[in-house]
């Protein structure tokens, strides 16, 4: 065993370097200063100074989702740590591998009340606070534990069903010099992520699918996480099964493929929601059957046999009872399933089901928009798709902008559509875009935003300008909290309460105040021009696009209703 003598803070940085961390998003503060001091000497890690810890956490999340590698954020104790909380909860809901490092007041101290448990200045019980929203969290009490703890944190965050892990670092532990052993093998008795699916279950699934007349595949975020898009495509084409994705699965399957149905759910594409009701065998992969996806549970695919592949055993049977449960990694499971299917199936060229799919797609998804006078989200987003290369990354805020993006912006590749699915965090899109841009600097990154959401984290414009992270923000500006306004319009008799934002701020001036550039656009032509300018720009561009506050997201399955009760555009 070779050990090196160094401070806890240096060991943190050394451990991060050994994990191949290239970037940390964070904000400094009193109790995390020793780690920052050690970071001063690091040539391998870039620190990006966020302007609010929530921004740092979302940026780390965006970085993780775009790259598939863990994203790291850092904050001081107390308010620094609690400001991370929304970002951590967001990463937890969407199974994103985010590592959060927090400073903590000293664990030990002679003749001082500035220590844990004494309600010290900027003390917050971040372990207690984040227990239900992290995959794991740990407060280091001995400096020598740091190498193993950091290694364990990365291992847990990135394996199995990924998720955020928080490491809390008391200041005295950071300052303590100890013999550090970086070679420690990690052995976690209580954590054995599943990997290979059970062959018998795969066999059962293959038998069901081979006999299916109307198979349908539902791909969730797990397909993207496990990089299983190729296996998904292969399986779908062999079975000639149409593929719907959940919102989190958007991008797992190319949405221009003839078998693509788009996203399911409350604001899913009509054809996806309709055909879900017709399938006889549903193959669901890497999805947790979230309420926004399934709508009312008892009418969700009630007549279909269901196969459910998920790496998290607890997701199987949690919301939906299934006929064939398969616990395993999506990629490995789909591969094994495909290998099994190809032995008993020839690729179908045509079937009554495929004809039905084609016909339904033509009939239901053709709702063309003939309104050329007003700027419509549909037209704007379809235009945006044309302007962006295939591998451009799109993030969204939360609300109408997000649902329009899901409906009208076709994602062609995995990890190119990044959005807050589970938690629905307004303010996520912009900092996540910055994180994605840092991960993929050569690709354009666009945040499809609403005015209400963008305001929540617009301070990160400073980060983008000062750190040279140019992205494009398209503000679909309706001067209201649009999704809530829509619900009030549809379900509350137009009693608009607490949704009017007004015409402030002027987003162009706001951008300019930060040293970014801004455009107001009033037509599709101006919009295209602005986007083209933005893609060339070396600074972040905010494009302010006025849209009607009366614009609805349709279709909608009203809250509490089932797939059959979908209300469509007229």
């Amino acid at each position, binding site marked *: 065993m070779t050990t090196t003598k160094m401070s806890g803070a240096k060991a943190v940085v050394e451990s991060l370097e050994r994990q191949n961390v290239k970037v940390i998003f964070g904000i400094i503060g009193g109790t995390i200063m020793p780690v920052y001091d050690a970071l001063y000497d690091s040539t391998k890690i870039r620190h990006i100074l966020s302007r609010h810890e929530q921004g740092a956490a979302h940026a780390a999340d965006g970085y993780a989702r775009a790259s598939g590698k863990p994203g790291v954020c850092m904050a001081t104790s107390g308010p620094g740590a609690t400001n991370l909380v929304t970002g951590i909860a967001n990463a937890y809901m969407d199974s994103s591998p985010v590592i959060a490092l927090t400073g903590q007041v000293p664990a030990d101290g002679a003749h001082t009340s500035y220590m844990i448990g004494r309600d010290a200045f900027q003390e917050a019980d971040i372990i*207690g606070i984040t*227990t239900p929203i992290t995959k794991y969290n740990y407060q280091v009490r001995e400096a020598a534990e740091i190498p193993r703890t950091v290694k364990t944190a990365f291992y847990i965050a990135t394996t199995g069903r990924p998720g955020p892990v928080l490491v809390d670092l008391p200041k005295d532990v950071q300052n303590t010099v100890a013999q550090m052993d970086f070679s420690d093998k990690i052995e976690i*008795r*209580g*954590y054995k992520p599943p990997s290979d699916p059970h062959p018998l279950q795969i066999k059962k699934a293959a038998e069901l699918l081979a006999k299916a007349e109307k198979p349908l595949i539902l791909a969730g975020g797990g397909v993207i996480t496990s990089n299983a898009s190729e296996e998904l495509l292969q399986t779908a084409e062999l079975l000639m099964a149409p593929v719907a994705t959940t919102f989190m699965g958007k991008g797992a399957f190319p949405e221009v493929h003839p078998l693509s149905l788009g996203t399911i759910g409350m604001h899913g594409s009509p054809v996806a929601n309709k055909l879900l009701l017709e399938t006889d065998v549903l193959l669901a992969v890497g999805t947790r059957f979230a309420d926004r996806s399934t709508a009312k549970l008892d009418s969700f695919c009630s007549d279909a046999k269901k196969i459910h592949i998920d790496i*998290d*055993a*607890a997701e199987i*049977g*949690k919301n939906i009872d299934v006929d064939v449960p398969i616990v395993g990694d999506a990629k490995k499971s789909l591969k094994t399933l495909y290998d099994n299917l190809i032995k008993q199936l020839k690729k179908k060229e045509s079937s009554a089901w495929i004809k039905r799919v084609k016909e339904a797609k033509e009939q239901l998804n053709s709702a063309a928009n003939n309104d050329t006078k007003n700027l419509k989200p549909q037209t704007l987003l379809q235009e945006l798709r044309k302007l962006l290369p295939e591998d451009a990354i799109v993030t969204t805020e939360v609300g109408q902008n997000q649902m329009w993006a899901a409906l009208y912006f076709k994602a062609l590749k995995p990890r190119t559509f990044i959005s807050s699915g589970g938690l629905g965090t307004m303010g996520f899109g912009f900092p996540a875009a910055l994180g994605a841009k840092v991960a993929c600097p050569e690709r354009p990154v666009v945040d499809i935003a609403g005015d209400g959401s963008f305001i929540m984290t617009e301070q990160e414009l400073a980060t983008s300008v000062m750190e040279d992270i140019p992205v494009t923000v398209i503000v679909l500006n309706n001067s209201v909290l649009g999704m809530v306004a829509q619900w009030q319009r549809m379900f509350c008799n137009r009693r608009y309460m607490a949704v009017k934002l007004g015409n402030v701020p002027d987003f162009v001036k706001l951008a300019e105040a930060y040293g970014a550039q801004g455009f107001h656009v009033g037509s599709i032509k101006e919009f295209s021009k602005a986007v083209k300018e933005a893609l060339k720009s070396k600074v972040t561009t905010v494009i302010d696009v006025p849209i009607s506050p009366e614009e609805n997201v349709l279709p909608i399955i009203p809250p509490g209703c089932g797939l059959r009760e979908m209300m469509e555009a007229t």
Partner: protein
Amino acid sequence: MENGKTKVISAIVENKPGVLHSVANMFRRRGFNIESITVGPTEQKGLARMTITVKSDEKTIEQVVKQMNKLIDVVKVSRLDPENIVTRELALVKVNVPDTKTRSDIINCVEVFRGHVVDVSPETLGIEITGTPDKIDAFLNLMKTFGIIELARTGLTALSRGTKSIRIDE
């Protein structure tokens, strides 16, 4: 949550700070109800055993076990087969003793239930009783007629019978 029968879960967990918090927190956040919980070290170093009783239907208990399994510091979780376990609970009870007649009546009861008198004062008796929760309930019902001054129950602890065991390979 519909009410069901009491189910017994036995879990081997890392014996370190915060584990009880994360288990209890998971129960709270998912809306599961803990009826009783006992925790203590096991024969294996660094590990503790939690015996948790939950009143729930089948579907819920299945989720409880799966969600417990997800917790990193929970090493192993098992549902104990009610037909094949030994369960015990311990109760300490302080009973009011107004006169010598009552005192001997109570001591008779304690003997029938194979309990022990562990404390005596002029007006009270301290009794220790061990057994299945049903047996303890029965004893306590009897004691109510004399007047219970104070009661402490440990909650249920359990092991499966025979060779079946929840052990962690070292």
